[in-house]
């Protein structure tokens, strides 16, 4: 329904970060998870009032829209997201704003992700390197003998694939 500008809804926008960082998802996957948890926590009535929708997905960051004044219940519901695209995940709310543009500016531009290998206990494992020394070992390299999520501190040596 078209409304006069003065009668339009006011929205708030939430910048979120999804972990693990290597999880690939589109806006529909995220919307399904978000609407699921909102409905489970508040029921149909408040879900309709919150009116969550995914505006943008950029890597592991996304912007979610909701009705103004209901961002706090949405934030609470987002903390209960455990699965996105049938994979374990978590959502951290970073910022809330009244405009999409201000949140877009806060999404990190360069997220250097590099593939490589790490050496732990004299064994080499495939790994994904993120900024600030974060390292996720690839699932197929896991034998429950080492932790999967580590930092450079935990490795004996590491090198990047060319």
């Amino acid at each position, binding site marked *: 329904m078209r409304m006069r500008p003065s009668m339009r809804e006011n929205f708030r926008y939430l910048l979120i970060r999804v*972990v693990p960082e290597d999880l690939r998802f589109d806006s529909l996957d995220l919307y399904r998870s978000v609407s699921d948890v909102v409905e489970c926590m508040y029921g149909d009535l408040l879900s309709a009032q919150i009116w969550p929708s995914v505006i943008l997905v950029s890597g592991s960051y996304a912007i979610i829209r909701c009705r103004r004044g209901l961002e706090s219940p949405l934030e609470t519901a987002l903390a209960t997201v455990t699965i996105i695209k049938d994979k374990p995940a*978590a959502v951290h709310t970073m910022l809330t704003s009244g405009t999409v543009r201000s949140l877009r500016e806060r999404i990190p531009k360069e997220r250097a992700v590099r593939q490589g290998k790490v050496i732990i206990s004299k064994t080499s494992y495939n790994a994904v390197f993120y900024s600030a020394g974060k390292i996720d070992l690839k699932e197929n390299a896991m034998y429950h003998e080492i932790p999967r999520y580590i930092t450079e501190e935990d490795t004996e040596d590491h090198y990047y694939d060319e």
Partner: protein
Amino acid sequence: MFFFDGCVFPYPLGGVSLSRFAFELSSLGFSGFVAAGENIRSDHNDIMIWSSRYLSGLTGQALVKEVRKPLHENELVYVSAGDAQFNRTVLSTPGVNALMDLENTPKDGFDRFCAQIAGERGVAIGISIRPLVELKGVARQKVIRKYEEIFTLQKRYEFPVIISSHAQNITHIRSVRSMLNLLGGICDDESVLSMGLSCIPSLKTRPGVIREV
């Protein structure tokens, strides 16, 4: 104000290394955390790391023996809860810092007598947000009701509360704000929740604790 995650499980109890926990929790607004397990290093630059001896499945003499083992400087003793009688025994045992996992106790597992003992002896009660996040439907409603009871008793007997994520994986971690939001629907007293995230250092120095000299 310092905010501590009351309990996380680094490798080998979980899939995340201690330094990665330190990195992630520091980026989510925590100034420290308590890691369950042995040989925990507490020398990380950005964040305070305390360790805990997490005792579960022990009863009687075995529990007392384990609790009496000498502690390191920043080490706490957590005991997993059981039925009401067991909980009363644990709360009366000198050296126990916190009673955890109360969401798994049977009905009336934590009654007003337990609350009174906890209040008198300054033993903390653990509140984990993990069941609130992971459970759905009736199971989650039961946990919410149990936590409501605990907060009602806390108002009356004023025992300390520890709020924790019980994270074993990177996806179990939640930010300070998320934790406060999640529990805000159960307890309307914000100061109790803030204290729940910041009372860890005071557990070692609380009055009434019997300390070996």
